């Protein structure tokens, strides 16, 4: 049946959980495009025949093929667009450097789009907040406090603070530090936020 492959693409993306980017299904896309090409050529010849030969009984077939072509287009565009939205969310979650595994899941064009997006976002952030710019990708939710209490889960070594001095992070020592400095380490699992 027509449009099966396109449905496959959409289903695959629908099954992937929110925020995850499955690998770029080049094969599937190629098959859909080939199907669309085949349909288009068949339609082309039939239209010529219907016009010249006056065979009006071909018109429903032509209409049917046209509908499948439109459906295929809609599915592929939805697939590509949804992937772009997911890639955009990755920038907000991971920062400007993506982990390698994710990079392999993107096609070359998606990579290029990601770079453009990064550049736009960076230009925008630089234009805010006076000279230094404002990093709006920190603090997705309004923070409750500027400083948080963290506990060190493993020996990390020295860690630099605002005024240039450093803190020695040893196992089981507790620190009270500005929130934004700790977030990276909390994500890595070196520090643990202590809620008291």
């Amino acid at each position, binding site marked *: 049946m027509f449009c099966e492959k396109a449905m496959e693409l959409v289903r695959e993306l629908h099954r992937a959980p929110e925020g995850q980017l499955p690998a770029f299904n080049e094969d599937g896309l190629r098959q859909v495009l080939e199907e669309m090409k085949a349909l288009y050529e068949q339609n082309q010849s039939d239209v010529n025949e219907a016009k010249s030969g006056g065979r009006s009984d071909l018109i429903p077939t032509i209409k049917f093929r046209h509908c499948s072509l439109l459906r295929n287009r809609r599915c592929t565009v939805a697939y590509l667009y949804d992937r772009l939205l997911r890639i955009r969310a990755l920038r907000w979650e991971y920062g400007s450097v993506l982990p390698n595994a994710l990079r392999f899941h993107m096609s070359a064009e998606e990579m290029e789009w990601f770079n453009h997006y990064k550049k736009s976002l960076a230009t925008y952030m630089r234009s805010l907040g006076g000279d230094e710019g404002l990093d709006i990708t920190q603090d997705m939710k309004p923070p409750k406090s500027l400083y948080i209490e963290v*506990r060190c889960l493993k020996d990390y070594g020295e860690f630099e*603070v605002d005024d240039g*001095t450093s803190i*020695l992070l040893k196992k089981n020592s507790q620190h*009270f530090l*500005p929130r934004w400095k700790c977030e990276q380490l909390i994500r890595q699992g070196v520090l643990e936020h*202590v809620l*008291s």
Partner: protein
Amino acid sequence: MFVSDFRKEFYEVVQSQRVLLFVASDVDALCACKILQALFQCDHVQYTLVPVAGWQELETAFLEHKAQFRYFILINCGANVDLLDILQPDEDTIFFVCDTHRPVNVVNVYNDTQIKLLIKQDDDLEVPAYDDIFRDDEEDEEHLGNDSDGSEPSGSEPSEKRTRLEEEIVEQTRRRRQRREWEARRRDILFDYEQYEYHGTSSAMVMFDLAWMMSKDLNDMLWWAIVGLTDQWVQDKITQMKYVTDVGILQRHVSRHNHRNEDEENTLSVDCTRVSFEYDLRLALYQHWSLHDSLCNTSYTAARFKLWSVHGQKRLQEFLADMGLPLKQVKQKFQSMDISLKENLREMIEESATKFGMKDMRVQTFSIHFGFKHKFLASDVVFATMSLLENPEKDGSGTDHFIQALDSLSRSNLDKLYLGLELAKKQLRATQQTIASCLCTNLVISQGPFLYCSLTEGTPDAALFSKPVSLNLLSRHLLKSFVYSTKNRRCKLLPLVMAAPLNAEQGTVTMVGIPPETDSSDRKNFFGRAFEKAAASTSSRTLHNHFDFSDHCLRRPSLSSRCRSCLQAGSSQAQSRPGPGWCRFTPRAVAPAGRSCLRCVRVMELKAEDRSKFLDALVSLLS
């Protein structure tokens, strides 16, 4: 030097800086630390918290962090030693010390720049006057120099020179004699000052006072101050008088914070914290246990009933029968006892207890109440936190236990508190069982000037008693029970030295010294000095790691009696050591591994080999 205005000279100084907190491993320090943390979080002071269990850890941690911080706060460690000498800090480092250990080392008191003591001066400190201890040597040297210049021979007027020379010689000898007298007086003063160790006001209360001065005190902080004070009382660190006075102070704060509950119309919701004053029974954990278990495992009742003997068990049954409490009810969980029995329980128990010779069954304390289920007495929390701190489980390191205990003090970590309560029950049971076995098998022997008891390695729960606070509690309860068990009147007035195995591979034992049990004891402990001297004279391999100087680690084998003579020679030498030029008392020079700080409980780590010679030395020293 002593800080007079805590807010200006301490808090406002550190408010804009990053500080490092060194916190010792006891419940009072944990409570003080929680209060200070809450204040710092309120004011966004960046701090780092490092738990330390002994001198070695303090020194290592200081070395690691000294490049990064300028301000250090020490809680319950460091007042009784010469900090500058031990830590060797840079010129601009400042230490704030909030410590209950007394006597405060004189160098710490008279150092104006680097050491600030957060200690209230109305505590009975009795610091010797400055001129009695310190003296400029320079003027003496100048005089000596002049004299030597003046004594250069020049033969012009021999008779005049001779009389001048004689005068100068007389002057010199007079000055030297004066100096010797001064030094002898100084030795005596310092010996008297540092002879006994005791404890001052709880650090948690000091911190709460600071919070109150800044009007930033909360009910939670008040509760922590209460727990800190109760910890001092549970471990017998302060006298009964001081405890009652401090309870009075805290009671005023409690009524200030918690008066809304008395008004019928505007009471707070059940989930809010309520702290209230109670005149409650001194049975340990009785509300979380069965009444019977609590009576058997509280040292106060166990000692007076003599529960290690069959006769004692019978007396306990009589006691319960006298109150009319059926045995079945008493043996089940307290919360499931009949309400009719629980209603007047406290008064009933107090009445019957007075009949059986226990007049102080009820004690002034506080309790906290939040939600429908959660009600804790201050002593419950103290026992729970203590057991978490000294948890014998090996899977965590010492600092893991510290973190767990610190967390259990917050209201949101009730599961840890309940875990602590279970551990505390185990510990209390183990303590009473060990005491019973020691008394029944007559392990407590009199060595002459003191009693001695040693736990062998095969004792059940020996791992539990290798930690200082648990061993301390065990020893105190053992002494109390022994006093009730023995008929020998002289033995009742003797102090106790207790040894427990610390580490089987290294062959070390921990030794504790407890002062004698008297009614009016002022909780002063002389064992620190005694241990140090004995250790020095017998050159036992000892480790004085704990902040309490009465804890020592010894190596096990042999101590021969050859050290007896060494001991006597060593004792006179062990007192003062004037350095060149700057006449300063350096305790470090006294014993190789020891400090001359005295602390209330003497705990020491010792190689087991040296144990017997150490004991001999101690016997001769104290007799």
